[in-house]
């Protein structure tokens, strides 16, 4: 669905050139949920904005659905860190905003908008104004707005990071349900290992600036995944440990595979953890 080849991005800042991304090569299948994880400033948001077509790449090839990315597209929806709801519009009107901008008929899509609101637990809030909703609810509206376009690809830039921990878990869980139902391709930028392991099929780990693709970790835990009982905690722990290792160790340190972890932690490779180098 998404093919990224040799992608590099350099920004011109006041103090000189800033290399945000270097030589990213990545292929994302249709219906796959890819998490992109990395420290602050490693270029994950830049990568997302490149895929969205909001900025042009300095070098490299970017194909979404077989077509080159030249600008924002209707079949690619983006969810931002802040809900970005228009405060003068009701919840329903906010969800229908893309329909209006695409000059399609409101009446045709109105029922689907209401269904989306019900799906995210917002039934009865259609006529409310954004300021009457909590942060988590606003972000759900923003999610509905992205879904009304029936996008082939959803790009999510740390959508839950402005929310409290419990709401994050709740929304991550809901996102999993929506992804299982709609099977949209999702690229999910986060700095939470917990979210990445809960939601993703694969996790792409970016190194510090300039962002390079350090490793892609498979997460083979069967769905639906949860935080509570039957959570396949061993698998989750193994993946989380792997990701922690990648994110928190310095790049110069020898890269340990899961077989080489010191005694006292994991003694042998856990089933369900595959590592691509």
């Amino acid at each position: 669905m998404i093919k990224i080849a040799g992608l590099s991005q350099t920004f011109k800042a006041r103090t000189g050139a800033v290399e945000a991304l270097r030589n990213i090569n990545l292929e994302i299948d249709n219906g796959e949920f890819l998490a992109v994880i990395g420290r602050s400033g490693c270029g994950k948001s830049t990568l997302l904005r490149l895929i969205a077509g909001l900025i042009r790449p300095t070098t490299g090839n970017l194909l979404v659905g077989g077509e080159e990315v030249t600008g924002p597209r209707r079949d690619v929806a983006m969810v931002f860190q802040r809900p970005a709801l228009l405060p003068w519009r009701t919840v329903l009107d906010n969800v229908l905003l893309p329909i209006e901008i695409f000059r399609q008929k409101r009446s045709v899509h109105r029922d689907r908008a209401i269904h989306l609101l019900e799906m995210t637990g917002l039934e009865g809030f259609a006529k409310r104004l954004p300021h009457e909703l909590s942060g988590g609810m606003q972000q759900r509206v923003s999610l509905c707005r992205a879904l009304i376009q029936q996008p082939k690809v959803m790009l999510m830039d740390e959508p839950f990071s402005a929310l409290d921990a419990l709401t994050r878990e709740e929304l991550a869980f809901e996102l999993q349900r929506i992804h299982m139902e709609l099977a949209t391709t999702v690229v999910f930028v986060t700095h939470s290992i917990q979210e990445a392991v809960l939601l993703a099929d694969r996790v792409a780990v970016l190194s510090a600036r300039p962002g390079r693709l350090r490793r892609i970790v498979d997460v083979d835990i069967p769905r639906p995944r949860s935080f509570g009982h039957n959570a396949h905690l061993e698998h989750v722990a193994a993946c989380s440990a792997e990701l922690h290792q990648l994110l928190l160790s310095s790049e110069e340190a020898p890269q340990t595979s899961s077989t080489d972890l010191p005694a006292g932690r994991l003694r042998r490779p856990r089933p369900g953890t595959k590592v691509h180098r």
Partner: protein
Amino acid sequence: MYATDYLRPSAAEGPTEPAVTDKRTRSRKPQRLSDAVLPALGAVLAIALWWLATEALDIEPFFLPAPPDVVDAFLRLPGYLLNETLVTLLETLAGFGIATVGGLVMAVLLAASRTIERMTMPLIAGINAVPKVALAPLLLVWIGFGTQPKIVMVVLLCFFPIMVSTMAGLSSTPADLGELAHSLSASWWQTFAKVRLPWALPQVFVGLKVATSLAIIGAIIGEVIQPDRGLGSVVVSSGQSADTPLAFAALTLLAVMGAALFYLVAAVERVLVPWARAVSA
């Protein structure tokens, strides 16, 4: 908003009234009462103090008329005063209307095109810096007598604040809303009409409210320099006939007109931009 999160049950339990709206609906009745009572009380207290001052300090009506003298002036010439009030009001409204339309159009134009903005902004800022009082005699030369020069004076005073605050509003669109519009590949016009303009409305109303008092000042400047009709002329002519109570009656009417215009604009704002108060602190 976030503080009330843990007060509210999850959405799965059904829609509930957020705590914030509860407080507002509960106290709306007594608040409406105090909305009317407190300003009236303030006015009554001010008048009482004024009356007390004139009595206690034994001030001559020629210098500072006591409230009864002013009321007496009202009752002497009600028709005359109301007629002149109407004249001033029409001048004010006409000038305000023209300045609003002109200011908004100009602001949109300057917000749309950087080249036009760079060309005209210094010019407009310079013209606005010229004291309008100095221009009043020139208006007499260019336009002559009657209400037109007064209307022009009103426009000159109101145009700049309305234009500048509208421009400020249009250029203050938050980055995340702009990015949202970009990600939906909205055209310039769609972004302007659906995002930038509604966002700018609170700022536009700031300019309009400032302009209401300036509008009346403009009308009065015109009338004082060229007295023929209107409350400014009443003040001038009553000064010439040493009828200070009448001058005060005219000034009181002006003050009432100014306050009424201001609150009218505020009421329109509450209708057109109901979300602004909720979004800010």
